[in-house]
């Protein structure tokens, strides 16, 4: 892999849970991000997927320094930015910008488009001298495919897709090297979504940007990402190149997630094998011991409750070279093909089609719900 422009090490964000008004007593913590390791190479797109509440947005906010981590390091070109302050921090922040999810609420309705896109110049006046700002803003609008004449319009005069372009133009204003995009197309229609995704693609090659692209739509993430990290309850459970994750997943959670994605092909209906997970995600205030996925995992065993599986290439998979060899935080990691139409890999997912999870989503609900459904049927 090319040189990492961003390295995240053991990153943690815990929000204290307090009780009482006068004497606030900490009674616990929301473990929103709970030990994340990531590398982002220059010019690459790293996709982050995972269920609602798994900590994606919290991670994003820490990367762009909107929020301070409880512990851990974020190294930008080797320098830990979590320890910077003042001028040095300001200089680094310029290079890491964010694009937000909701084009309807993230733009101030009382500001003109020109003011919104030019706002970063107020904080970083050195990026564009006062006299040149208006033309710079118009240039940015042009880059994202909006009519430069629109500078004096207000957000409500634009459609959702156009508003997302305004957000992207603002993200580009300071010519950053890294853009962290938190669900940038989730609120958009399929056809508009395609326009914005193509725009992000084009901008990446034009300005050699690196992206951290967060989304819950796994198809979009595959389309845009070089590598993909799968998060569950505050941690990355599996990470690898897009084909490693989509065509050769080895973590049960990734397999369940991928198998649940509806495929836009009615012919696939009959041949699909879906893994329906039992129960809900446990609360991030009360994380299960050992493997945090074990309350919903159909493969869970005694060892899973005792030992935390680390994010590394599983030892028993290091003998088979090829795409199964990628980091997966599971004691019993094993390849299984779940995406219909995805090519069969060289290792063929040896017998991994057994052990379908229990279909009844009612049992084992919540964190106390035992060790999931299907009785840990080890595939034959």
């Amino acid at each position, binding site marked *: 892999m090319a040189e990492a422009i961003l390295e995240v090490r053991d990153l943690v964000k815990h929000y204290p849970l307090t009780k009482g008004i006068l004497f606030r007593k900490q009674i616990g913590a929301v473990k929103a991000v709970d030990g994340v390791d990531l590398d982002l190479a220059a010019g690459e797109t790293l996709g982050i997927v995972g269920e609602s509440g798994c900590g994606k947005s919290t991670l994003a906010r820490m990367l762009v320094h909107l929020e301070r981590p409880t512990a851990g390091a974020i190294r930008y070109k080797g320098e830990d930015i979590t320890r910077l302050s003042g001028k040095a921090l300001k200089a680094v922040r310029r290079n890491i910008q964010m694009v937000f999810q909701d084009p309807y609420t993230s733009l101030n309705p009382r500001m003109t488009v020109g003011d919104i896109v030019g706002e970063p110049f107020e904080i970083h006046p050195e990026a564009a001298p006062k006299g040149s700002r208006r033309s710079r803003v118009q240039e940015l609008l042009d880059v994202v495919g909006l009519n430069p004449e629109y500078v004096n319009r207000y957000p409500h005069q634009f459609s959702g897709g156009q508003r997302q372009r305004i957000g992207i133009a603002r993200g580009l204003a300071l010519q950053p090297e890294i853009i962290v995009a938190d669900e940038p197309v989730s609120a958009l229609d399929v056809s508009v979504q395609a326009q914005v995704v193509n725009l992000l693609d084009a901008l990446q090659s034009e300005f050699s940007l690196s992206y951290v692209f967060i989304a819950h739509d796994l*198809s979009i993430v595959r389309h845009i990402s070089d590598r993909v990290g799968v998060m569950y309850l505050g941690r990355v459970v599996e990470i690898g190149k897009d084909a490693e994750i989509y065509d050769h997943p080895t973590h049960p959670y990734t397999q369940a997630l991928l198998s649940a994605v509806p495929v836009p092909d009615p012919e696939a209906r009959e041949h699909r094998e879906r893994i*329906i997970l039992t129960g*809900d995600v446990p609360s991030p205030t009360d994380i299960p011991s050992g493997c945090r996925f074990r309350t919903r995992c159909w493969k869970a065993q005694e060892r899973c409750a005792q030992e935390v599986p680390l994010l590394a290439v599983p030892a028993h998979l290091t003998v088979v070279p090829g795409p199964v060899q990628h980091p997966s935080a599971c004691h019993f990691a094993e390849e299984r093909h779940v995406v219909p139409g995805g090519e069969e890999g060289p290792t063929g997912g040896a017998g991994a089609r057994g052990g379908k999870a229990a279909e009844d*989503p009612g049992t084992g609900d919540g964190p106390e719900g035992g060790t999931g459904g299907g009785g840990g049927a080890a595939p034959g």
Partner: protein
Amino acid sequence: MSTTPERPSAPGPLLDVRDLHVEFHTRDGVAKAVNGVDYTVSAGETLAVLGESGSGKSVTAQAVMGILDTPPGRIAGGEILFKGRDLLTLGEDERRRIRGAEMAMIFQDALSSLNPVLTVGDQLGEMFTVHQGLSRKDARARAVELMDRVRIPAARERVGQYPHQFSGGMRQRIMIAMALSLEPDLIIADEPTTALDVTVQAQVMDLLAELQRELDMGLILITHDLGVVADVADKIAVMYAGRIVETAPVHDIYKAPAHPYTRGLLESIPRLDQKGRELYAIKGLPPNLLAIPPGCAFNPRCPMAQEVCRRDVPPLYTVDEDRRSACHFWEETLHG
């Protein structure tokens, strides 16, 4: 299962919407939200309604349910035949009785459609006390049964809890329970899983499909998700600018769309099983409902538009027995 005496014994569709028009009177003028919609649903059948934001999917559903905001909304024409009777000729009392007992709706956002200050048990039970005159105690027992049926674990213990104490997926299941409580013949689900994660979405859709089979209900599923549609629908109606532009059995439409807008939609979705090139994107903007373009409403964005498209509104052409397309060039589209 059901004891409803007036189940349709005649073949005919359960619901037959004919040339429905709905408009909104706004300060800026009259917004023509629905401009001649035709669709039918039979018992046991799933119709998926697709189309971009603002194309009139929800407004059509609200007109069928009889919950349209009037004013500013107004039904400007058409018929809504339900079991052979035109709902638009019935009084509000009769419609209220039909709503809930014979047709029910599931909304996108379960948290805001459930009452936050009433327990889940009270809200489920209310269906039985109001519609069937059950006692509070009996209604509560029925509520527990329903929660069991949509697989809320420990239903007996949780029946007294409030909506915010349930997860998003469970709340959506409770909404389904409420819609199903009186075993209606028709369910309209307006983006029932849009707010949910894929794993939870799969649970909810499976449940809905299973209960539909069990009760032989007609289901109208409104969604943006072409994956969900491919998974559950029997037939599809695609809407654009308040009209149905194509309707077809699900297999046909994915194989070969007969309308350029449908084709654009299908081509713009990224795929899970392959790394894409550039995504196809329908160019341009959605139409302004205050000033719908003359001729075919899609013409400013259509790659196949010709002179005739800017002049003549395309009728709903018959492609084959169970397939229609509102495009002058449907044959070229189908074979192109």
